[in-house]
């Protein structure tokens, strides 16, 4: 029982990082119905930006978080502006290919600059607390706390503010909404910025929790978050969070029972299974538009 509870905390930690990244995939899909394959690599760059920042000036955790989120937000906007916007009315396949290409360019450029995995320095004093036999570290509390906090801010932003209303409107019908005077391009750019900044925050948190940062992270971790977004129903924010926690739990349980090399096999098989039986994910609504 105690073992299970301990694993549940681990699953919560992994799940909340996945959730932050998955939200980025889902937001972009919701607004543009486009899979932003480069998002995993933006997440990876978040961790590298943090390394770079600490190497230049040793800043406390909160400052690093804000700076990294800002930097990845700018990066996300730039990718949208120069790679995706020119293709907005092109066939959807062109956009997916471009996204895949952008991701690989980012990944391999990082690999060219830093061929080896790097250790992440400690940003916080990591204290271990004992709660009736359960071990919880400061890091775990911070990771889960920051993730849940950011998700609540996002939820508020989407549901209660005029920006959120505009974003939902652009998602449902871009052409009409533009006619009604909503600046669709700006809304899309801000959506990308928010998604990328959440990805960057996740990169920083992931780097702190599993203190090795490598260029391959965008695929090994970032694409898992994409799997989570699809499981939950891509385009649906709450679905992304649900999918992320399910995937986190499945992965932690897999590693507890089987050798860790089976993790990818199980996650991607789960994805395939969900797509076969619930093609729009757990919370996604079937769309009527022609694909």
């Amino acid at each position: 029982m105690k073992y299970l509870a301990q694993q549940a905390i681990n699953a919560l930690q992994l799940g909340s990082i996945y959730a932050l990244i998955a939200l980025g995939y889902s937001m972009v899909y919701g607004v543009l119905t486009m899979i932003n394959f480069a998002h995993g690599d933006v997440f990876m760059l978040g961790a590298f930006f943090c390394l770079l920042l600490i190497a230049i000036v040793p800043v406390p955790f909160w400052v690093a978080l804000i700076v990294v989120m800002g930097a990845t937000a700018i990066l996300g906007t730039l990718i949208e502006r120069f790679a995706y916007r020119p293709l907005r009315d092109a066939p959807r396949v062109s956009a997916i290919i471009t996204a895949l290409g952008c991701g690989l360019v980012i990944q391999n450029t990082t690999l060219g600059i830093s061929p080896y995995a790097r250790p992440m320095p400690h940003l916080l004093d990591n204290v271990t607390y004992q709660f009736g036999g359960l071990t919880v570290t400061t890091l775990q509390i911070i990771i889960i706390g920051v993730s849940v906090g950011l998700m609540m801010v996002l939820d508020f932003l989407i549901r209660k503010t005029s920006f959120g209303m505009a974003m939902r409107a652009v998602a449902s019908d871009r052409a009409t909404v533009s006619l009604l005077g909503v600046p669709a391009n700006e809304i899309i750019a801000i959506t990308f910025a928010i998604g990328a900044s959440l990805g960057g925050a996740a990169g920083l948190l992931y780097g702190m929790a599993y203190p090795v940062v490598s260029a391959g992270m965008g695929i090994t971790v970032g694409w898992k978050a994409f799997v989570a977004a699809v499981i939950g129903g891509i385009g649906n924010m709450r679905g992304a969070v649900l999918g992320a926690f399910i995937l986190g739990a499945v992965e932690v349980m897999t590693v507890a029972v089987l050798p860790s090399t089976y993790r990818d096999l199980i996650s991607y098989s789960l994805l395939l299974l969900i797509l076969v039986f619930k093609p729009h994910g757990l919370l996604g609504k079937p769309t009527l538009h022609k694909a």
Partner: protein
Amino acid sequence: MSGMNDWTKSRYLPSVVLFAGLIVTAILPATGLLNDYLQFVLVSVAINAILCVSLNLVNGWMGEFSVGHAGFMALGAYASAILTVKLFPAAPDILLFPIAVLIGGCVAGLAGIPVGILSFKTRGDYLAIITLAFLMIVKSGLENIPYTGGPRGLLGIPRLTTVAWAYFWCVVAFWVIRNLVYSKYGRGIAAIREDEIAAEAMGVNTRTAKLVAFVTSSFFAGVAGALFAHQLQFINPSSFDILKSTEILVMVYLGGVASLGGSLLGAGVVTILTQCLQPLGTWRMVVLPALLVLLMLFRPAGIMGYRDWNWLKPRIFTKPRLEKSKQAPLQ
């Protein structure tokens, strides 16, 4: 207009030229005119051309987006290598190799069936996700099989892929896919690309067409994988990752979608470019994806998109239009 005596119009000409090519490729390495490196490049061009034309069937003619081609390739490579390394290491190569390549293709073709079935209902983004999941499952599945060396891979594969074999399979791939896309089925496949619902309404059996396209495409990916394994003499699961798929995608979209000549051109240009960029090391892997992005932005259909050279088309599609004076007068 000499009609019967014009040898360039002979119906036997293509067969004669292709057979002569086979003899030349079989003899050339023995004459010493081609050094090992040139042979390696030629075989690579042929393997990549097979990969490119087979992916083009799904991504070009059918207009879907598959990123799982490297997965099918891996299945073909592993299946054939198990035959030549583990099961029948003593069998005579001349008999074993064609059978191994064929079985490699069949294993990959069988794996194409479930993906094809899944494509009945899902299209576009979701089909891309399914092929991505397929690729990841194949890769991590192979990493967990101790029989084939797990993540370390299979070593000591005999070097059986000669220039002649690569040429032979390349011709077979182009011949089969040409005859397929210019046939009734092929028209159906192209109709799915233009408008699936309209195609179905016009009587195209879209399910059969999709299945035929996926199985043919994955069969030849398997064949290419088998040739690849017996060229490099070493395979491991990470040789067949998403970057390998991207490399094939670059060839398809550079050469031209839905084009046989484009496939040949794309495979040739990308293979030679990769060889020229060898000194760049890791940075080489930045160039290909960047090229892909630029192509999508500026020329999404590639150099020869939706067009072909006349010599690659069946004769019936290359007939010159009748001149005005020769047209039958209207009643």
